[in-house]
């Protein structure tokens, strides 16, 4: 069953019966109790959510740990298609997008994000190992909000994430 659908069903059930336990919820929707716990946990999470898109597992893991330690809620995607579907389901506050990825590269993902009415408000920061000016121009023309060159300084990246989120709130 769709995670979003379950989320809305759980919320409706909780409104009717505020004292219902996780187990009872799991039984009523016939799903695993852990899933209910996860959903509840994410629903109650008020941290700003970052969608991290990169095909390199190690880079992804290191950055995730670093950003989580800074108080962000980090969700990951390993390729472009996954990134697009997660952008829809997770509704992140910012997307960190690697350019070099298999199947669909970062430019294409950015283009699709910006042409989607539901998603084009989400700020996008492009991450790339390439440092050429051409890439920067291409990235910005696709509608990327900022640009960070690998290997980046962690502090600088955090500052840029903050600035992009703040700018988006205005």
């Amino acid at each position, binding site marked *: 069953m769709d995670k979003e659908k379950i989320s809305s069903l759980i919320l409706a059930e909780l409104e009717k019966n505020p004292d219902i336990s996780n187990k009872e919820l799991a039984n009523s929707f016939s799903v695993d109790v852990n899933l209910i716990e996860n959903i509840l946990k994410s629903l109650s999470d008020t941290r700003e959510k970052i969608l991290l898109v990169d095909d390199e597992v*190690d*880079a992804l893991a*290191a950055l995730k*740990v*670093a950003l989580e330690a800074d108080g962000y809620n980090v969700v990951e995607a390993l390729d472009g298609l996954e990134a697009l579907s997660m952008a829809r389901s997770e509704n992140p506050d910012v997307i960190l997008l690697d350019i070099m990825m298999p199947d669909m*590269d970062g430019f294409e993902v950015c283009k699709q994000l910006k042409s989607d009415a539901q998603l084009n408000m989400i700020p996008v920061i492009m991450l790339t*190992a*390439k440092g050429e000016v051409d890439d920067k121009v291409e990235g910005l023309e696709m509608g990327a909000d900022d640009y960070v060159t690998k290997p980046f300084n962690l502090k600088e990246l955090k500052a840029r994430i903050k600035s992009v989120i703040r700018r988006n709130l205005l």
Partner: protein
Amino acid sequence: MWDKQNKWNLVILAVIVILIVGSIFFLWMKANVEVRDIVEEQYLSEQLVLTQYLSSSIEDMLNENVLLLEVISKKESGVPEDNFISDFKTIYEISDIYHALEFVDKNGTVVSGYPAERVPYGYNLYENNRSYSIDYVRDTGQIYISEPTMMMEEMLGFFVFVPVFENGVYQGSVVGIVVADNVVDQFEVSDDSIKLAYVIDDDGLILYDQSGFYEKGSSYFEYVGDSESSRLEIIDRQISGLEGNGKYPNTLSEEHVKNMLISYSSIDWYNHQWSVALVSPEDEVDKIIVSVYIKLFTVAALSVLFILFVSFQVYFMLMHWNRSLEKEVEKKTHELQNSNESLVAANLKLKELDRLKTEFVSMVSHELKTPLTAMKTSSEFLREDTCDPAVRAQMLDIIIRSVDRQTRMVDDLLDISRIESNKMRYNMADISLQETVDHCLEDISALFGSKGIDIDLDIPDDLSLVYADRDRLIQVFVNLLGNAIKFTQEGGNVSISASEKGEFVEVRIKDNGPGMDEAQLEMIFDKFYQIDSTLTRKVGGSGLGLAITKGIIEGHGGSITVESTLGEGSEFILLLKRSITEK
């Protein structure tokens, strides 16, 4: 096809050609007429000279012959005893023109003569009323020549009377009978018998005729009509003792009227005045001109033929030369084209290499920066935070993995650089293939174990040792098997088999992965090539693995090829040198 412009051009061209041909023809005709006039004039003057020669010769001969008679008649002794018979005999024998010689005494009777059979002895001139001549010579003492007389032998003759005086007293006359035919026959009038001669006296009487048209002794005027003014004029001039040339139409020729060219000259012989004429048809001149023209045309034709021949020789020589030049140019052009094509191909190849290199550099940059990013992020995080030991261990693992990955990348780059610059050193030895493969499988057991891939090993126990660098061979197998495992789905199958092929050992590594199409097969051993484009790699890797593998195998003196069917899998076939020392 013919437009108006062309039509007009054609008409103008035709008019010009007609004008040129017309004027050439006109000039040619004019020149022809002039040439004819000149030749005719020359011909006539030559004929006149001949006529003059003839007339003077005849005149001289006649006078000389008369002189002979004069000589014997002027003897001191008067009339000799034999009445001149011995003298007559002598004269008759040396002269050709006398028919007979006679002596007529003062009474007018023929008393002697020679030859005797032609002498009418006793014939008295007085009795026969023919005394005018002897009376004349007796009275005047002058030589007298009678009018032409037809004699009994059908010959036209003249009687030459020379008086004989003794002490101033007339003793008689010596008479010479001259036959007209004999006179002119003495001369070869013309060698070609085209020029015909006739002689008339001052009354127009025909004395001699070579043509046979005119009867001897008849008057020339009988043969000339009143309308033939030009001919009459010529005869008038002849009778008047003039000399010159003339032209008249020949009415006697029945076939067609042709002009005759005539030259005439006078003969003065005592009381006679004759005129000798040479006549030739006008077409003699044409014949001369034609013969000249024929010679000219022959020379011209031969010249033209010679010029044509030489021209053709030159033309063919030039053609040949031209053709050989063309061939040469064609050859050079072909060579240039070939070299141009190879340059273009080389240029394309260079461009492609350049593109691959740029791609490679960009990819290497990505590959080197990616682990750096992970390391940097992890290490910066570790420095900032006091985190729990589990997270710390995770971060340190990331750092170590990244360092390993970068080390591999740098190793690969060094290998490819060594292979390219031929600086790869191989530690060659006889090694067992079985052992090497086993070692290699141990190294990568984690990889295929995690994907649940079966490895089928088929290496005969008695297989020859191979002559190779053990570590490099392990590197090759790790690479090939790694690829096979990478591209094979979970639960797939990879097989390794080996057999001897002549002086080589053949090793086949087969997977049942996705396979490759022909375009991919062509390029997989190229450095920097990856099946998927740089931006969309699925499997990762430097793109150098197969290039390094090929470099190492070829560095060993072996070879590597690949066979593949899309959707069914790929098979790499290695040929490695067998050990030379041992079977």
